[in-house]
């Protein structure tokens, strides 16, 4: 049984302009010890997918269909009380900006210890002891002294380590990291990614890594799913995806990287802008920007096609 299996997940927002399909018929699987990268541009639905797994979709958003099986149990059928036992305890999240997700008026020690007291029933002294141990594990020097610090007294990299410590304090089976290093400098980013990898090896947790950085994906993820306008357009084992992209959007993204061009040479581009799709629009979400799309693409929403070897692609033209 997979650790996490999402089937047909749709999360829609009722807005004055119409129904915004933020997440549309998403299927994803995460195994124990596996890193799944969820890649997409702003508004592609990757963060709303994460919020849906945690059942923390902000109103007016609503999960309208699908199932989210976590160790075989459908999270969407659980009572709010049961869900609260899972959230933060067995499934944890790490956010992009630790300054806004750490509470500025509580010490680091109080915040890391909080989950241990609530979910594990430790007393204050035990929880503090455990918190110091976890901070040491994530590479905070002199952890016992830092317990008394407030978030503003730490650097951005250290705050992100604290966030990771909080997320991992309860030994969750699944961690969702939403752009965990986007706010950090590149040398600190490398340290944090290595830390996450090491902790994942040690605990065999599953990791969903949400990012727009294709370099990070290529180096860290076992499997990669590419999202566009709410839909997964392509997913495959990472090496296969980068060596043999099938979807025109994936191909366009890879071709547009300055790293893949000669210096000074014109970069390949995807024309147009990232769309916001409201309900009622039929057809492939990428059709307006697609170099190979035709009338058929405007009429039919493409089903996921299995190209073999775990390589899935949502495109009418990619498998002719």
């Amino acid at each position: 049984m997979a650790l996490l299996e999402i089937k047909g997940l749709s999360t829609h927002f009722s807005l004055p302009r119409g129904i915004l399909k933020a997440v549309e018929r998403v299927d994803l699987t995460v195994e124990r010890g596996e890193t799944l990268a969820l890649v997409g541009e702003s508004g592609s639905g990757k963060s709303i997918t994460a919020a849906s797994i945690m059942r923390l979709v902000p109103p007016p958003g609503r999960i309208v269909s699908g199932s989210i099986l976590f160790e075989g149990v459908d999270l969407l059928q659980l009572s709010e009380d049961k869900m609260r036992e899972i959230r933060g305890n067995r499934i944890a999240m790490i956010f992009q900006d630790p300054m806004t997700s750490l509470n500025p008026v509580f010490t680091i020690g109080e915040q890391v210890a909080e989950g241990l007291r609530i979910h594990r029933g430790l007393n204050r002294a035990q929880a503090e002891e455990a918190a110091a141990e976890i901070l040491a594990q994530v590479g905070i020097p002199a952890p016992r002294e830092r317990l008394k610090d407030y978030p503003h007294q730490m650097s951005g990299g250290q705050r992100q380590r604290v966030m990771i410590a909080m997320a991992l304090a309860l030994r969750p089976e699944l961690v969702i990291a939403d752009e965990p290093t986007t706010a950090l400098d590149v040398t600190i980013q490398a340290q944090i990614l290595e830390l996450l990898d090491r902790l994942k090896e040690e605990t065999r947790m599953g990791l969903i890594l949400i990012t727009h950085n294709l370099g990070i994906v290529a180096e860290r993820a076992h499997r990669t799913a590419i999202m566009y306008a709410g839909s997964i357009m392509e997913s495959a084992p990472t090496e296969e995806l980068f060596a043999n992209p099938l979807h025109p959007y994936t191909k366009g993204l890879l071709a547009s990287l300055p790293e893949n061009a000669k210096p000074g040479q014109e970069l390949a581009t995807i024309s147009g802008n990232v769309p916001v799709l409201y309900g009622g629009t039929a057809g492939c979400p990428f059709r307006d920007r697609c170099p190979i799309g035709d009338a058929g693409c405007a009429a039919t929403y493409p089903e996921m096609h299995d190209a073999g070897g775990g390589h899935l692609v949502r495109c009418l033209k990619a498998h002719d």
Partner: protein
Amino acid sequence: MTDLLRAEGVEKQFAARGGGMFAPHQRLMAVAGVDLELNPGETLGIAGESGCGKSTVARLLTGLIPLSGGRVTYQGRDLAALSRAEMALFRREVQMIFQDPFSSLNPRMRVSEILAEPMVIHGIGTEAQRRDRVDFLMNRVGLLPEQLSRFPHEFSGGQRQRIGIARALAVSPKLIIADEPVSALDLSIQAQIINLLQEVKRELGLGFLFITHDLSVLRHVSDRIAIMYLGRIVESGSAEEVLEHPRHPYTEALLAAIPSVDPKKRRKHAAPKGEIPSPLAPPSGCPFHPRCPYAEERCRVERPDLVEKDRPGHRAACHFSEKLPR
């Protein structure tokens, strides 16, 4: 050929609040003696991590904030000695493009007004000529005439950056200083904007100062590169030399830390240890020595000068450049 813009020993100190309300102010050396030169039609890229002083350098070079030391010359003339009229001309010929086009565009102005304003300020053309020029600019940056009457919030991030570029081009500059111009943009839009910047640079023969933390973007656009760390340039030279054969351990660490999509380029180096020190308390000697794998006793006491290494024009501030693999 005289250079377009030159910085000599440029310094900037800020006063930072001390520990308590009545504690004495501390001095923060944001830029600690920077030398740069930019030739007409050339792109100089400046890279470094947050707090290294790269954006402060940009603001010093445009005269937006006063220098604490050193001097900046434009076409051979000291900025401090320019008359009012000459300064106005300098402000016209040197334009900036910012990272966040939303906060740098007036939300209450229509695009037509945003693009005409620099010409109005500099007293260029009649109203009809300015209108023609605005039409030309819209077309040049790939926006449609019917979008002229719209407000900034009606545009996507990439389109707003196109407006920012058009505004900078409105007064026919000779030099553009772009501070992280593509960092806030989505991947599929980034390439469009980089191409646009490259096109206008070639067409108009502009000098370009391109500031970014993204070395893959910098490699793509730059003729020469300067790497900054804690307020100083630690390495400079041709883009190829600096990025292919770094002579400073910090450049080497930066390059190793960039995740690459190319399996051949993936160097599983250990991430550089430690954090960027506070500019309030910079380390003694070489500012990089606490994080440097090659550091020796000398690095703790003696700050290395930026000197030419084994290729002409390739400079690095390191006592032990020869330890780096070539």
